[in-house]
C-alpha cells in the first residue's frame, strides 16, 4: 500500500487463499503483501507447504485469490475476465516450472514456439512462421541449445529441458518471469548454470524475475528474498 506512489511492476495486496480438502478449509496464504519493482529479481523462500507455489500461481493468474488483489503496473488484474487473463498470461508472464513441463509430443523448437502458436491464429501463424522460427532460433541459441532444436524432450537432459522451458518462457517477450523451483530437479552445477542464465536475463534485459525456491543457496543469488512462513511474509530483506 505504501508503494502506490512508485507504482510497482507487480504487486500482491493482502492475498488470501485456502483450499478445501474434504470438509476442512486449509488456509495457504493468509494476507500476503508483496511488491516487485521493474527489473527486480526476487526470490520467495519457504518450507514446503508454506504457500509459495500457490502465491506464484496467483501472481501469474493461474489461480485467483479468495481475498486480495494482484496488480500489474498498479492496475488490478486478478478480477479481469477469463479470456483477458488468458491473454495476459500469454503476453505478460513467462512460466518456468520445476518439472520443466514441456510437451512430450513436440520438438524443442515446437515447444518454444507454443506461446506464439497460442497467441496467433493458425492463418497468421502460418504466414509469419519464418519470422517466428527465426526468433525462436535466436532464443534457443541464447539458452545454448541450438544443436537440440529438432529433439524431443525425452531425448534431452534435465538441464537442457529447463533451458528449453526458459526459452519457451522468453519467446513471448514477457514482462515478468515466474520461476517455480527452476533448479529443484537439477544437480548443483546444472542448477548453477540455470541460475546464471536467469541472472544474465535479469541484468541484460531488465526482466523482472520472481523465483520460488526452498533452497537458501539458490535464493541468495536473487537481489531480494521474501520469506514465507505458514502463509505469511516473514521478512523482507535485500539479498546479498
Amino acid at each position, binding site marked *: 500500500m505504501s508503494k502506490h506512489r512508485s507504482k510497482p511492476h507487480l504487486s500482491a495486496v493482502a492475498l488470501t487463499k485456502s483450499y478445501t480438502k474434504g470438509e476442512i478449509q486449509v488456509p495457504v496464504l493468509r494476507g500476503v503483501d508483496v511488491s516487485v519493482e521493474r527489473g527486480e529479481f526476487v526470490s520467495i523462500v519457504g518450507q514446503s507447504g508454506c504457500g509459495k507455489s500457490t502465491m506464484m500461481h496467483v501472481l501469474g493468474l493461474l489461480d485467483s485469490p479468495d481475498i486480495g488483489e494482484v496488480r500489474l503496473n498498479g492496475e488490478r488484474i486478478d478480477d479481469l475476465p477469463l479470456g483477458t487473463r*488468458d491473454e495476459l498470461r*500469454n503476453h505478460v508472464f513467462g512460466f518456468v516450472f520445476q518439472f520443466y*513441463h514441456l*510437451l512430450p*509430443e513436440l520438438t524443442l523448437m515446437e515447444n518454444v514456439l*507454443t506461446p506464439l502458436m*497460442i497467441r496467433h491464429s493458425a492463418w497468421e501463424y502460418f504466414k509469419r512462421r519464418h519470422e517466428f522460427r527465426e526468433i525462436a532460433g535466436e532464443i534457443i541459441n541464447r539458452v545454448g541449445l541450438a544443436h537440440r532444436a529438432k529433439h524431443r524432450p525425452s531425448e534431452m537432459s534435465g538441464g537442457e529441458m529447463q533451458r528449453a522451458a526458459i526459452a*519457451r518462457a522468453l519467446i513471448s517477450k514477457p514482462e515478468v518471469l515466474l520461476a517455480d523451483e527452476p533448479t529443484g530437479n537439477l544437480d548443483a552445477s546444472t542448477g548453477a548454470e540455470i541460475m546464471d542464465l536467469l541472472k544474465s536475463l535479469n541484468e541484460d534485459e531488465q526482466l523482472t524475475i520472481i523465483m520460488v525456491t526452498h533452497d537458501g543457496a539458490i535464493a541468495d543469488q536473487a537481489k531480494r528474498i521474501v520469506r514465507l512462513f505458514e502463509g505469511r511474509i516473514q521478512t523482507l530483506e535485500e539479498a546479498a
Partner: protein
Amino acid sequence: MYKLLLSSRYLRTRFIALASIISVMLGVATLIVVNSVMTGFRYEMRDRLHSLISDVVIESRSTDGASNPEELVQHVWDVAGEYVDAVAPTVEIYGMLSFKLSEGMHSDEYAHCPVTIIGIDPSQQDAVSPIRQHLIGRQPETDDEGHVIAPPLFPVDSLLNWELSENAKEHRKDWLYNRRWKEMVYGETQPEQPFYEAPASEAAPVAYSEPDPFGHDEPIRTTELTPDAQPGQAATASTFDPTGGQPASDLFGSAPIKVRDPDEPFPARLYVGQNLIAFPYKNEETKETEMIPLVRPGEDVQVSTIKTGLPEPARFTATVVDVFRSGMSEFDSSFVFCPIEELQKVRGMMDPSSGQGDVTMLKIKLKNYDDAGLVVDRLRSATDLFPAHLFNIYTWEQKRAPLLQAVEIESKILNMLLFLIIAVAGFGILAIFYMIVVEKTRDIGILKALGATSNGVMSIFLTYGLSLGVVGSGVGVIMGLLFVHYINEIEKAISWLTGHKVFDDTIYYFKSIPTEVSPWMVTWVALGAMVIAVLASVLPARRAARLHPVRALRYE
C-alpha cells in the same frame, strides 16, 4: 495453430487412436459395401420387373377384354400422344399349362401349372417391352468361365418371330418319333389332341394353309406320309406308327383340308418361362446347379384357359418355340407368351363383323418414363374414353408398389442398423478420448499456463476427433469402394477358401454381383461418420477445457 499441431501429433503418436480409426473405417466401409450391393440388387430387380411390364398399362377390368383395339390405341394417342412412344394391344389371361411328364402303361402323368397367358404381336411387343433378350435361344451358350461355346440359335437383335430354330426342329423330330414309338408300345393310352381345334366358324385355310414356316420345299402334306417324303428318323417313325401314317384320316375321316402334317408345329406357338418347364438340379459331384428341362423347344404342350362370357374351358395344343428367362422368378414361373390371334380365336374374342380381336390390355411405352404419372392422370381423367369401371390404368411402379416399397423399407432399416456400427465406433472414440484427456492432463495445464483459452483446449480435442473421423471415413470410403469394385474377385476368393459358393448365380441368375455406387450415399456415410466422431469427442473435450490449470499442472 497449436491445436492443429497437437491434434496431428496425438494422432500420430497414439496407437490407441488407430483402434478408433479402424472402427470408424470398418463401419464406413461396411455401410458403403452393403449399400452398393443392395442398390445394385434393387436396380437390377427394378430393371427385371420393368422389363416385362411396360411403362404404363391400361387393363380392361373384364377378362373378356375390350373390343375394337385400334380405336382404343387411337384414343391413347389422342389423349397423351406427345409422351407416348408405342402402344401394344395384348391379351392377358390366366390359364393352365399342361405337359406330359412320362408315359405309363395305363395312364400318362401330366404336370399342370397355373400360368398367365399373354397373347402378343411380336413386333408390337418388341416396341413396348422387348422380351427377345430374355429368350434362351437368343443367348450364346457359355461355359463356366463365360466363354462362348455355341452361338445363339437366333441373333439376339433379330426381330421376334414364332419360328422354331433348327435345333428345335431336330428335337421335334426325335420327340415325335419317340412319342409314336411309345404309343405303339403302350397303345394309345389317352387320346392326344393332335390337331388344332379351331372354332367351327374359323375358316380352316386361314389357320393351316399358311406358308411353311420352316421354309421347306415340300408342300404341306395333307394325306399320307410316305417314308421317302420324310427325311431321317421321322421316316422310320411313320413305319412304327400304329395309325399307319394316316392318323388324320382316322380321326377326321372327311375334310382333308383340316388335316395337317403331324410333324408340323402347331400354329399356336409359345415362349414359356423357364421355371415352368425346367427344374434346378444340384449335381453333387461338380457342385454345379443346372436346370433340367422337362419340356424342350419343339415339343407340344397343352394350354387351357377360359372362353369369354360364362366360364367355359378352352384348350389348345401349342408348340414350344423357345424358353425365356428374365431373372424374375415370378415371371419365369408364370408367364407364357403366345400369338395374340391364336389366343383370341381360342377364347372367342374375334369380332366376326370387323375381324378384329378383343384385347384385355394396352401396353404403353413412353418416350420418357418421368412423364408416367402425368400420362396416367391424363388417361384416367379421360373418363369418356377409358371409364374407370371398365379400365384400370397404372404405371408399372404402381402395379409393383408393394414389392418396391418393401425393398425400399428393408434397405432403410438395414441402413439404420448399420449406422449403429458407426455409433459403436463413436462410443469407442469417447472412451479412448477420455483416456487421452486424463493422460494429457498436465499438458493441458501447461497450455493453459502458456495462455491457451478453454475453447482452445477444447478445440484440440474436437479437431482430434474430427481428424479421426476424416481419416477413418476417408480410408473407409476407399476400402469400401475398392471392395465394391473387386467384389466378384473377393467372392471367388472366399468361395475358393471356404469351398462352397457364397453367391450362387443360379439363385439370382446374375453372372456377377450387381453393385451400384451412389455418390450421395458415399457422401452421407462419410459425413455421418465424421459427425459421430466429433460428437463423441465433445464430452472429453469439455472435460479437458474445464480442467483447472493449477490442478492440471499438479496432476501426477
